[in-house]
């Protein structure tokens, strides 16, 4: 399940639904990216997307993760638009037979979302708005998965 949403979402409720009735997968790994900033500050972050193209590209990344790590299931929920401090930006969940595959798939998905999903992040800090680009570390992280 891949979803882009303009509205806040609750990672706990999503994890509950993702785990429910799962008797075949021994392992569910997840990652939540939260908007950092002073409590109450709004917006602290703005994410621009390109509607269906963004969704389609994230679906490709999820399909690649499923294939590489033999996942039973995968979910990506990505917030777009403006968000406040403490709100969830992204939630990735993976289900697999064993923990290693679930962890690595989650790690892979986050690395690819950081630098290969058509999303553009603008931070609203004390010094004004600033477009974020992937750091050297983000790019190096993504390269780890290349064959």
């Amino acid at each position, binding site marked *: 399940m891949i979803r882009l949403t303009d509205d806040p979402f609750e990672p706990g409720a999503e994890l509950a639904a993702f785990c429910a009735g799962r008797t075949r997968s021994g392992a569910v790994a997840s990652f939540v990216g939260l908007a950092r900033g002073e409590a109450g500050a709004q917006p602290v972050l703005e994410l*621009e997307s390109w509607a269906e193209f963004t969704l389609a590209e994230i679906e490709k990344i999820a399909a690649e993760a499923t294939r590489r790590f033999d996942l039973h299931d995968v979910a990506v929920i990505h917030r777009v638009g403006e968000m406040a401090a403490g709100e969830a930006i*992204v939630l990735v969940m993976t289900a697999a037979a064993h923990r290693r595959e679930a962890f690595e798939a989650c790690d892979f998905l986050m690395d690819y979302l950081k630098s290969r999903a058509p999303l553009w992040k*603008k931070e609203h800090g004390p010094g004004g708005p600033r477009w974020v680009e992937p750091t050297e570390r983000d790019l190096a992280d993504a390269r780890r998965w290349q064959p």
Partner: protein
Amino acid sequence: RGRPIGRPPHVDHRRMITVLLFGRLSDLAGWREQAIEPVPLTLSALKDQLARRWPRLGDALACPGVQAAIDKAVVRGDPRLAAGAEVAFMPPMSGG
């Protein structure tokens, strides 16, 4: 954000292309979407044309991290452009 410029009501969409900008590129240009006519021959000719009219955008488009997509497919090199095409310029992506 700027509205498309030079797009009179009688315009024939088959004789133009649409350019989309994302992230900092649209901030630099002052617009997100622009109709361009007549249709430039190739992607590099389009970039030259944009650079003449919006120099800061032109500089940004020359950066190695900027990708182009024609009709939602990422392209490399200098493909020819067809009338009606949608050309998107995307700076380095930063989700997650």
